[in-house]
């Protein structure tokens, strides 16, 4: 009995030491700021950490379909509400949950918009298991920072001050026309894991009293009828609204020869402008969103919009 108790205690001790060291190394590995120089990944989306608390009205989450389509500064200029695009490349729904929580740490949005492409990026059980571990120990996510560690990383506390001008939108003004491309071939199936994460998103919004809107950004490549059916069904099960911008291509005025930079996969700035304008009008009609234009506290948005939209046009 003695030996097995000793062994059990030994193993437990080893694991405890491991956890302690993981926590220690994670503190060092965590980026101490949210700019690229600080080693923060996904800089456009990470700008949310630097936005003044309680100033963002709408949070967008999703993948590249989201950050190439929606322009917060244009929404500001035309409708007057503030928004931020917390979208990252190939964002999976488990990452969406984390971004939601991260965005809502300092903000109290009046609407959450989820771009539906994330529903169709698969998650495997290994990633799902790793998710809480990665959250607890940032070392796993940021271990590659060993290449550019600085002295600050060893003693400073994280301070997020880097404001991202375009509020998460990623600008692209190239034009590569759509020719022919097969629409998404899958059957729109959303597996058990993704459904579970969707439910988590729905529950989070419900608990905080924030309405949730699912939207499908225009794309010739990542859209299909099957996905339309499954996306609207998903929205229904979450008690969320659903808007399919693909069906409204004509109303939006999209021209797939000039409005895309990668043959119809994503919109370029011209297409994004059209889509955002339409979407802004839709949001203002269906949701009671504030109009901060003229409010001195939002001066920075005016400045940013003036600079950004001048560059775009």
């Amino acid at each position: 009995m003695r030996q097995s108790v000793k062994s059990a205690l030994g193993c437990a001790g080893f694991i405890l030491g491991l956890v302690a060291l993981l926590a220690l190394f994670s503190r060092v590995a965590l980026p101490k700021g949210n700019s690229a120089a600080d080693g923060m990944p996904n800089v456009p989306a990470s700008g949310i950490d630097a936005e003044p608390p309680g100033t963002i009205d709408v949070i967008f989450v999703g993948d590249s379909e989201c950050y190439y389509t929606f322009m917060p500064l244009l929404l500001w200029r035309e409708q007057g509400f503030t928004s931020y695009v917390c979208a990252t490349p190939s964002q999976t729904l488990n990452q969406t949950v984390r971004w939601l929580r991260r965005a809502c740490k300092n903000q109290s949005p009046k609407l959450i918009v989820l771009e539906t492409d994330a529903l169709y990026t698969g998650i495997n059980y290994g990633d799902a298991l790793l998710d809480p571990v990665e959250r607890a120990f940032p070392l796993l996510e940021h271990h590659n920072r060993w290449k550019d560690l600085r002295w600050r990383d060893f003693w400073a506390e994280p301070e997020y001050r880097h404001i991202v001008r375009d509020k998460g939108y990623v600008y692209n003004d190239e034009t590569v026309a759509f020719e022919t491309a097969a629409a998404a071939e899958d059957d729109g199936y959303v597996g058990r894991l993704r459904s579970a994460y969707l439910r988590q998103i729905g529950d989070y919004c419900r608990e905080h009293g924030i309405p949730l809107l699912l939207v499908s950004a225009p794309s010739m490549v990542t859209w299909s009828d099957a996905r339309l059916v499954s996306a609207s069904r998903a929205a229904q099960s979450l008690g969320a609204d659903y808007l399919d911008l693909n069906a409204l291509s004509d109303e939006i005025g999209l021209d797939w020869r000039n409005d895309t930079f990668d043959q119809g996969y994503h919109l370029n700035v011209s297409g994004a402008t059209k889509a955002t304008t339409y979407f802004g009008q839709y949001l203002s009609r269906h949701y009671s969103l504030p109009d901060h234009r003229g409010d001195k506290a939002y001066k920075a948005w005016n400045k940013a919009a003036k600079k950004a939209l001048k560059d775009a046009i």
Partner: protein
Amino acid sequence: MALSELLFAGRSPLLVAFFSVGYLFMFLPAVALAFCLAPRRARRMVLLGASYVFYWLVSGTLIAYLLATTLSAHYFGLWLDRLLRGRDEALKALPRDQRKPLRAQWQRKIRGVVALAVVLHVGVLALVKYSGFFLGNVNALMEAVGLSLRLRIPAYLQPLGISFFTLQALSYILDVCRGTQKADDNLPRLALFIAFFPQIVEGPICRYGDTAARLWDVGPMNLDDVKLGLQRILYGAMKKVVIADRLNRMVGALFKTPDAYGGGFVALAAVCYTVQLYMDFSGSMDAVCGTAQMFGVAMPENFQRPFFARTISEFWQRWHITLGAWLRDYLFYPISTSGPMKALTLKARKRLGNHYGPLLAGAAALFLVWLCNGLWHGAGWNYIFFGMYHFALILSGSLAAPLLRAAGDRLRIDGERLPWRIARTLRTCALVVIGELFFRAETLGAGLHMFGRMVSDFSFSAKTAALRELHFDRYDAVIVLVTLAIVFAVSLVNERGASVRAWLKARPTAVRWALLYALIFYILIFGAYGHDYDAVIPLYANY
């Protein structure tokens, strides 16, 4: 949703990556837990069940190949056993001088059954792996001759590990036929031997006499074995995740578009690929042996510090040892000591003396062995070239051996002194690296082209854009070199006969823990995983 989808068929192909979250933190703990909780008799069935679940999760309905191979091996074994016993009884009944013709008759029957078994198993393997290659070449030949007939090339899904478990099943059947192994009427025991999950992906190719009983009579889990096994898995993780996976993108870029880089980069690509291959394969083997050790099962080693070999011949006794042993025991010796070959040797020895005489039969058998070795790795002319390259090296080495020895004596050079040993080792490494260049090249033509450029235009020029494609900076180089130095140091200690693991075990707890923590965090920090890297399936899992 089809029933097979519902039951997770083929849903987790990433389980073959031994250092993935799925294998290391979900599958393996689940099996270990079931193993610990199982009563004594059921432990072996836990391993068998886990092996089939593993195969099902990775390859789905292709498990049919595995089951068919197992059943075939079982029934062929029993059939051969009956024939052998029948032969022995019939021969005993006769006086000595009348036995020869009857023995020959029985031998013909036995050989027929064995031939059938071999044709069936190798045939299925050939169909699944090589029909595309074979038919493609037939089509090319017809085009060259001007015929317009083209054969349709079927596409077969390759079941996981078929190259490995086919050889394992055949080794069982051949052992029964030669009398070294009695046929096993216990089907689950044979099934466990063939399907055991750690070794079904990439080997090692086990022998029935060694491994089957160890697996079947597996004892309770004990903490020492678990600790040693986990340590071994950790060490393998360092080799694969820190070194091999870090080199992956650079090697891939260099082989995909070799013309974007100067000839010197070809040499770099060949060296780095050889390093990647060795770290990946031996690291995976550490995971396999470590896993098996956790359950108290010893697996044969596949590597014995191959880059310390002084000749190519020795290299192949240290690299992928179980494959070499299989080809040697079931192909090389049986062929070179078969009737017609022995007659040839007899005649040749009269003419060419005892060193060169047997080389005739030896060369023929060796040719066949290397043809098979090359082809086993894949269906492509570059693999055949790889096999022939090593065949030529080994044969010429053997032919030249007496001359070199005489020259060495004349010049008073002792090949065993350290500077010469190092020189011979480096020469062997260089020859191996050149072979791997052809092994990895996309096609034989590409390999020859790359080799030509390396020799004719040895420069390190490349456009900046091309260099960026390599995804490899000086930090990466430092880490690779440092980790290689660690592996080299450990290998050196092991080559001298000492055991690093035994040394570690004897240290006080604080030192042991410190070293283990250092290893774990070394892998966590410097490992090539996460969103900046692509997951790399073990390189030998596709063979």
